[in-house]
């Protein structure tokens, strides 16, 4: 155990950085990155701490593909390590998600106009025996410190997707279903109560929920790196469709198509 800890510790501390890439593509699960890794020309694998990266070319771009792992701790750490190591011009975070609106079906892809963290809350006090009232909870937005002013700034609407990347993505083919611009919400939650699903759409405008995009968007914003997220619908509670992990293939193929369509950065 101690040997593993020292191994991780050494791998993560600063060594000479790798050659920069144009695009850092991230997926939380192997199913989400496998199509992109397979599309890399002359891929080379690199490990930083517990995280794997594969570097190669897709179309005109030098690309690093990052397997981030799920949720805030993994994706925040992997994003910072990826930014520091590869100095990407653009981050593409892609993967699966749960629909928050009835019009979305399995394999549809949402391209993030915005991505936000919807997990922050402040609950008014209720005494023992008075239960829990989720609709009374007050959302607490993600904050980041502005280095120019030294002030903490709230981002209640989250972080916008890069406009140029958004335009290219909306012209890109999803081989399995439709593509829409939309709002992606992130938290360490899987919400299957339709009333709460409706609340997240009503409160934040969310079209899909997942566990990474909003966090990665915050880090990208803080580090001044362009950012876009793609999320395929892998479960659709309005249609009674349970989680279908193979839907990840659609977002991987879409990302490869996007990279071919994306002009040199």
């Amino acid at each position, binding site marked *: 155990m101690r040997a593993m800890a020292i191994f991780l510790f*050494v791998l993560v501390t600063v060594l000479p950085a790798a050659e920069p890439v144009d695009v850092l593509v991230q997926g939380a699960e192997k199913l989400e990155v496998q199509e992109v890794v397979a599309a890399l020309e002359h891929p080379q694998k690199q490990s930083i701490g517990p995280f794997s990266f594969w570097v190669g070319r897709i179309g005109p771009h030098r690309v690093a593909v990052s397997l981030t792992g799920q949720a805030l701790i993994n994706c925040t750490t992997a994003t910072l390590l990826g930014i520091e190591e590869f100095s990407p011009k653009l981050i593409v975070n892609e993967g699966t998600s749960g629909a928050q609106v009835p019009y979305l079906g399995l394999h549809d892809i949402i391209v993030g106009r915005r991505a936000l963290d919807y997990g922050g809350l402040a609950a008014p006090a209720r005494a023992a025996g008075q239960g829990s*009232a989720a609709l009374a909870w007050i959302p607490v937005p993600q904050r980041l410190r502005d280095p120019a002013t030294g002030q903490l700034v709230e981002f209640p609407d989250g972080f916008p997707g890069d406009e140029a990347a958004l335009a290219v993505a909306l012209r890109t083919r999803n081989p399995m279903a439709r593509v829409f611009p939309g709002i992606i919400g992130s938290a360490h939650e899987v919400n299957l109560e339709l009333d709460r699903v409706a609340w997240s759409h009503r409160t934040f405008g969310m079209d899909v929920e997942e566990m990474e995009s909003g966090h990665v968007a915050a880090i990208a914003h803080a580090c001044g790196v362009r950012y876009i997220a793609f999320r395929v619908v892998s479960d659709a509670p309005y249609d009674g469709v349970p989680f279908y992990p193979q839907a990840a293939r659609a977002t991987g193929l879409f990302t490869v198509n996007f990279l071919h369509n994306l002009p040199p950065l």
Partner: protein
Amino acid sequence: MKRLFFLALLLTALGPGLRADVPVVLLAAATDAELQPVLSRLTGVQTERRAAWTFWRGTLAGKEVVLTRTEGDPLNAVAATTLAIRHYAPRLVITFGAARAHDPALRPGDVVVSDRFAAFDGMYSSVTPGAGGINPLKWNPLPHLLMHPDEKEVPAVTFPADAGLLALAQKLHPARGRLLNGVLGSSAQVNREADRIAVLRAQWSTSCEDGESAHVAGCAELLGVPAFGLRVIDGTDGEAAELVRQLVEAMP
């Protein structure tokens, strides 16, 4: 090849212990007010900024330390911890500050020292049709998964705390209240509903909650660095800092 050379060099340097110029401990707290009592005692302070996060390097009680401000939420806490581990290679991370009680036996001024951490923000609900309501008291816990180098994720209901520092912490002298071992919980939530707090405690064994401690510990675990935490229930700004000063002073 060049990277392998540097790796070998670093491994050699790490051999029996850390390099003399490597800071010993990372101290992480949410706010300037919580950091200031420690910062004011640092000598040879160097301030470094990386994107949205700030790091203060210096000497405290003869030990090299780095301080960082976590802003009191999981994302900033994980970001600051990641950057600190990558750039300053601490051998230990200490998260400290105030907390709200989950354990009804805790009183203001009691100090909880970590024998574990729980990032209790994970939940999944059961399939419920429209107009079926929202029932947080029936939500199921969803543990964090930590990535491992074999590209597999391992679920972690709790993250470990450094046993050596926990033993050392038993000698601390809180200004008011008792010293207890417990589970430090964190999330981006301020929970004030007694029934929900009871459910969270039953699911995660949390003694108390704050905005960052378990996420700092989870990040440290992810990157192979031991972590320890200390929280004063409804604490004032200087209370936890004073205990951290005592702790660093007592460290070998």
